[in-house]
């Protein structure tokens, strides 16, 4: 733990918020067509309808906001899942929640040609929910109940299954393939502001909800029996947390496709900096998640310029070594 007391933690949180805002600005300014900081300021203060101003308002701004929102949501979902399952490898991507939402969206867009944004969002939630319930059910089978190992295997199986369904479906439907390929790799590029605003209310409710339940999560992390003994209604808390996870992961997938690794990596980074108290871990994870996705998205523009790498590929490059590190450390310690 890097920060030892609450004033240091508050300071760390403020630094992170400042960094998040700076990175959002950088995300608006830098890219294939570099603009200047002054131009960006002009676009907000007195938009004259010039090409540059329109690009800033309709392309760059939504992109920065989406990266921040999706990164935060996935990181918080990961932090909740790791506490709920007592599993250091839990995250929306590793437990198949992202893949489930992804498959549902592909099915909806290509097969049923659903264009309505609200419907689209709810289909993504539904896919996330089905995957989450599936993993929970498969992980609970057997007499010793839910173990971290079984849950991880169930998650891997669920991810593989939904990924195969998605691929199989795209193979027989070539037109759809073109349409969703880039989205499927995980991307915040080329999304309209309306995509974000359709999902944002659910995300905001979930962010607030997860902060409200933080002190209860502290109690839950001491074990089911201890928590019940202290008078915590563990069943209700878990259901609320599960709904929040489904909103956050499903919402993120609806906007940006299944972006991996943020949900698993960020909570560990947050805990190593700010400690294990969820009242700090949840908000800090959210901000760090936004920072990571913004950085990944900015880097994605420069690697093979003028083309862009999908941001999901960038987070994988950053996240894979870390994932291996957690596997080695996490399962040895338990």
């Amino acid at each position, binding site marked *: 733990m890097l920060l030892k007391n609450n004033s240091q933690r508050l300071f760390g949180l403020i630094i992170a918020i400042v960094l998040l805002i700076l990175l959002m600005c950088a995300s608006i300014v830098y890219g294939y067509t570099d603009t200047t900081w002054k131009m960006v300021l002009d676009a907000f203060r007195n938009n004259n309808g010039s090409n540059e101003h329109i690009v800033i308002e309709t392309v760059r701004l939504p992109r920065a906001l989406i990266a921040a929102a999706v990164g935060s949501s996935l990181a918080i979902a990961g932090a909740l899942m790791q506490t709920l399952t007592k599993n250091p490898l839990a995250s929306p991507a590793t437990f198949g929640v992202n893949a489930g939402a992804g498959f549902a969206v592909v099915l909806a867009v290509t097969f049923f040609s659903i264009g309505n944004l609200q419907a689209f969002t709810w289909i993504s939630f539904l896919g996330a929910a089905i995957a989450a319930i599936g993993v929970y059910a498969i992980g609970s089978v057997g007499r010793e109940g839910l173990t971290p190992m079984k849950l991880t295997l169930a998650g891997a199986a669920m991810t593989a299954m939904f990924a195969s369904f998605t691929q199989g479906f795209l193979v027989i439907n070539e037109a759809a393939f073109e349409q969703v390929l880039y989205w499927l790799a995980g991307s915040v590029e080329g999304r309209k502001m309306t995509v974000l605003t359709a999902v944002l209310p659910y995300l905001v409710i979930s962010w607030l909800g997860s902060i409200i339940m933080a002190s209860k999560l502290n*109690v839950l992390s*001491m074990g089911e029996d201890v928590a*019940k003994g*202290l*008078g*915590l*209604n563990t069943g209700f808390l878990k259901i609320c947390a599960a709904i929040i996870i489904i909103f956050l992961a499903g919402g993120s997938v609806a906007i940006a496709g299944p972006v991996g690794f943020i949900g698993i990596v960020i909570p560990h980074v947050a805990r190593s900096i700010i400690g*294990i108290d969820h009242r700090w871990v949840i908000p800090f994870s959210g901000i760090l998640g936004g920072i990571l996705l913004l950085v990944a998205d900015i880097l994605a523009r420069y690697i093979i310029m003028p083309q862009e790498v999908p941001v999901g590929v960038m987070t994988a490059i950053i996240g894979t070594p870390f994932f291996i590190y957690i596997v080695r450390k996490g399962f040895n310690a338990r």
Partner: protein
Amino acid sequence: MVQTIETQNLTLSYGDSIIIDELDLEIPKGEITVFIGGNGCGKSTLLRSIARLLKPKSGAVLLEGKAISKMSTKDVAKQMAILPQTPVAPEGLTVLQLVKQGRYPYQTWLKQWTEEDEKQVTNALKATGLEELKDRPVDSLSGGQRQRAWIAMTLAQDTDIVLLDEPTTYLDMTHQIEILDLLFELNEKEQRTIVMVLHDLNLACRYADNIVAIKDQKIYAQGKPEIVINCSLVRNVFGMECEIITDPLLGTPLCIPYGKGRCILKKAGTMIGS
């Protein structure tokens, strides 16, 4: 006898197998009650259900005459604390953070942390002798210290009743006595009702005011150890032949099992013969 916890027709089961069958039990207030019995006899299950961690199949657990299933779980937590068997603290949690969680039942939206909370936490740390170690992570402590930290958490909960499921498991003899002495003192000084499951019959006899022996889903015997513990109880409850003698230090019953072992006693008869 004033009872504080009572079970009525309590039946407990895991799936189809009945663990405890229509049990009527009264636990006296302000005393130390110890559940004993063979492995898998249901003594831990009974304790868990009294602590509302396990829903009964039928029957009820009453706390001061009220059914706990009808009370709010936070209200129960203000009257009764439970320390489950071998709890695990999250990695990096400090002793102070752990003990503070004991105040959870008293926290509401408007009242986050009060002077009373602070006082209870300080007292709990003092009673368990952990003031020096309060900033250490729980997972860095020795087994005995760790158990004391968990007991401190249940003390901070400030309840009249403390339930403990095998609080001495995995501890060496020194620490077993240390933990049980601590609980004994709490009972003496503050008249807290203590109910626990113990494996060691001799320690049970030493510390319990009231022993509950469980056999075949029922209570086999209940009462003061010096009255209820005898050879036939040990034979019937544990399936073991033994000799009961008086503890030369405290006068409580002491169980010496028959069986094999190195015999170095020189019996009078053999000495004459040689």
